């Protein structure tokens, strides 16, 4: 019997790749159909949507650049979801940590360089970790739903950050609603001029590998994943389940904090009002497409950035609106969360046994 096992079953990786391909194919078809419906010059629009991001260095570099925060936030969400805790506060965590990074850099103008950036980034990441960790702590202490508390905390924090940007930290010499710019020595080096792509890309890639290693090669990762799949089993096996309500939240917030800090030092150089909006929510989408696999977050974030860049290019060179991206995102969400496609390729771990001996 065991020999028969596995023969018909595709490996998880193959299933995910197949399922994802079908999902993306359908998404592309939806884009094309929409363009034919909405655009007066559909072929031109399609060209810019799909090819646009590759037509010059500026578009291409910026596309890569916009994938960087998505890698961090996608990772942050993947880590939390893998542990079955839910961080819906990404928006606020990114935004607040970006402000903290900026504030630290402005407060220590002479530091700069690798050391200064490290200090400011650490402060930012800890800010994110603190905000998310609060929800984990409340969950552990009073069993409050972390999904709701993280969202609410984030919503409140956004208003506070707005106050600082438009109030105490506002740069009066600039007509932007933004803080002062950080000093030049805090800028991360550009690597694909004239685009905004910078060295934070390497940092993002390294972080992906580190998180993967943490999740799959350390005992923390093992315990986190076991808690994520079956908390009762984890407790029975002697794993400290309370700890793994807080730890994944801390880690998730930490990664969101990196997204905020890297955006400031790499791209924006000042904290602009609402600049990070969407990074948190899109991180959830990225993690969903990546099926919470840290490595898969890279292509997933790139794909997301590609869709956005395509829509941007099509909007500039043709006659559609940016909202088409939202529709495509919705379609992808729908297909990915529906799971039906994946299950077509895979048979789920047998429900038969669950029925047989489940509740007594």
């Amino acid at each position, binding site marked *: 019997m065991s020999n028969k096992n596995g023969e018909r079953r595709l490996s998880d990786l193959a299933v995910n790749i197949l399922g994802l391909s079908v999902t993306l194919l359908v998404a592309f078809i939806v884009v094309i159909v929409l363009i034919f419906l909405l655009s007066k010059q559909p072929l031109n629009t399609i060209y810019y949507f799909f090819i646009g991001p590759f037509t010059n260095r500026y578009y291409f570099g910026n596309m890569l650049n916009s994938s960087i925060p998505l890698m961090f936030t996608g990772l942050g969400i993947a880590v939390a979801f893998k542990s079955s805790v839910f961080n819906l506060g990404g928006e606020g965590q990114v935004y607040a940590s970006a402000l903290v990074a900026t504030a630290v850099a402005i407060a220590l103008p002479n530091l700069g360089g690798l050391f200064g950036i490290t200090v400011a980034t650490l402060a930012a990441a800890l800010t994110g970790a603190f905000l998310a960790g609060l929800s984990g702590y409340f969950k552990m202490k009073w069993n409050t739903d972390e999904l709701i508390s993280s969202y609410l905390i984030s919503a409140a924090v956004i208003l506070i950050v707005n106050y600082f940007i438009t109030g105490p930290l506002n740069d009066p010499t600039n007509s932007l609603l933004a803080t002062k710019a950080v000093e030049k020595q805090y800028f991360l080096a550009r690597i694909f001029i004239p685009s905004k792509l910078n060295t934070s890309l390497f940092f993002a890639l390294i972080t992906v590998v580190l998180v993967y290693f943490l999740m799959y090669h350390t005992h923390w990762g093992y315990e986190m994943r076991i808690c994520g799949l079956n908390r009762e089993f984890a407790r*029975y096996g*002697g794993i400290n389940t309370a700890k793994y309500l807080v730890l994944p939240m801390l880690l998730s917030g930490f990664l969101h904090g990196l997204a905020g800090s890297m955006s400031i030092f790499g791209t924006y150089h000042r904290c602009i009002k609402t600049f990070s909006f969407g990074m948190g929510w899109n991180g959830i989408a990225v993690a969903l497409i990546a099926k919470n696999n840290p490595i898969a977050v890279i292509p997933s974030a790139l794909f997301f950035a590609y869709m956005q860049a395509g829509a941007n290019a099509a909007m500039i060179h043709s006659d559609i609106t940016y909202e088409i991206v939202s529709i495509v995102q919705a379609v992808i969400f729908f297909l990915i969360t529906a799971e039906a496609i994946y299950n077509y390729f895979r048979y789920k771990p047998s429900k038969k*046994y669950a029925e047989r001996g489940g509740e007594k």
Partner: protein
Amino acid sequence: MRGDTTEMKSIQNPLLLMEGITKLYPENSVLANDNVHFEVLEGEIHALVGENGAGKTTLMKILYGLQRPDRGKIYYKGKEVHIKNPTDAHRLGIGMVHQHFRLIGKYTVTENVILGREPRRYGMLIDRKKARKSVIETARKYQLEIDPDAPVFKLSIGQMQIVEILKILYRESDFLILDEPTSVLTEQEIKRLFETLRTLKQLGKTIVIITHKLHEVKAISERVTVMRQGKTVAVKDTATTDERELSRLMVGRDVILKFERESIPKGETVYKLENVTLTERGKKVPLLDNINIEVHRHEIVGVAGVSGNGLTELEDIIGGLRRVTSGKIYHDGRDITNLSSIQLREQGLAYVPSDRLYRGSSLESSVIENMIVSNHHNFLRGEILERKKILNYVLAQREKYSIRCDPNIPIGMLSGGNIQKVILARELSTQTDFILFAEPTWGLDVASSEFIYEKILSLRREGVGIILISSNLDEILSLSDTLLVMYRGRIVFYEENKDLNKEVIGEYMLGLRDQFNSLNHTTPRTEVV
């Protein structure tokens, strides 16, 4: 094999004929039914026996429309039928009582029975009066005793089963399928069920009863079909066969039904519960009431009881998953009262849980990850898990416990027996002198159960003290050195296992007798919940 099947020729006009039924479960490539032939005569009680995984339940699910066969034909009352779902089955007059009841606890008996076929008033309102009346009438007609107004959660397991049967009869079905109806019942309740079945038979109903308890086959059925590994291997008249032959047909070899428990004098105390009491906040009646148990080296202490009488709570407390309200627990003389499962694991707790699917394993995790949950700290270099070392360890364990599977696949794809072996391999790897087994063979086939019995006995030989919590009386009676029975959270019987029999133990389990409370000695307690 064909030699066994002389009686398998088609009989003239069977009520039900299933022919060439084939069903492959693609999710784990198990051929659950392989060209199965099955016949039932009108008005008989027909036993369908076989080990777990022999395909009995699958065959009946196909008949009841819960599964579609890949191949094969079903004839009912001489006509070919296509049963696509349970509604089709109901229309034909076929009803099924599942192993796990499908009742709504907060609804009354009447509401549960009429569910899905409510008598209506003005087309849309439920006619409660009429419903109650027809439920009472149905019950009277088939001599079933049940209070139509009692909420189901207050009923005993045996009464819930009556409700399930009543549900079928209310739908005027005349073909009843019962999937392992006795697995959750006490001896007395089983007797009552069998009486009910005989009454139903006299009133013209046809009954198929799935079981793997062979003495029940003898007790209740007229004919028996034996299945093995997805095939029908024999059809017998019950009168002309015996348990030994049936078990040989079921497993394909002789099974030792009784094994020898060597007499070993018990050693010093290893584990002790002292006046352990558990009371839920805000409740007066304790879930565990002043429990005293002492476990010695070389001793198996069997704990019997009907579910809902404190067995689960006792298990949770020993496993460190629940805190006692008062009392003390000692292991090797150390006070371990209310240590968390984390601390207990550090001290070498070994515990095979009754809920092996959701507590004992993480179904979506691989066999490897399941095998190391309590001991992965042994494979650390710094903070890093040494995968090679883990794999070698798991492969060695797989060999030792003859678990046949790829260790990288999710444990949920394994059979129940293999899942339990993985759990055993993990728990017995702990070097300890005390182990808790809870329902170690529940739902497992004969071969897997035997394997587990051998393990338990060899642990006893090595000097381990064992608590065995089990609802399987055969198992408890043949394994335990000391036997205790729990009823309503109290120990009502505690004695050396000598000349004890099921009947007596059953009476204690039902609260009809009590060693420690002479007041209720003769009369059964009135049920107040």
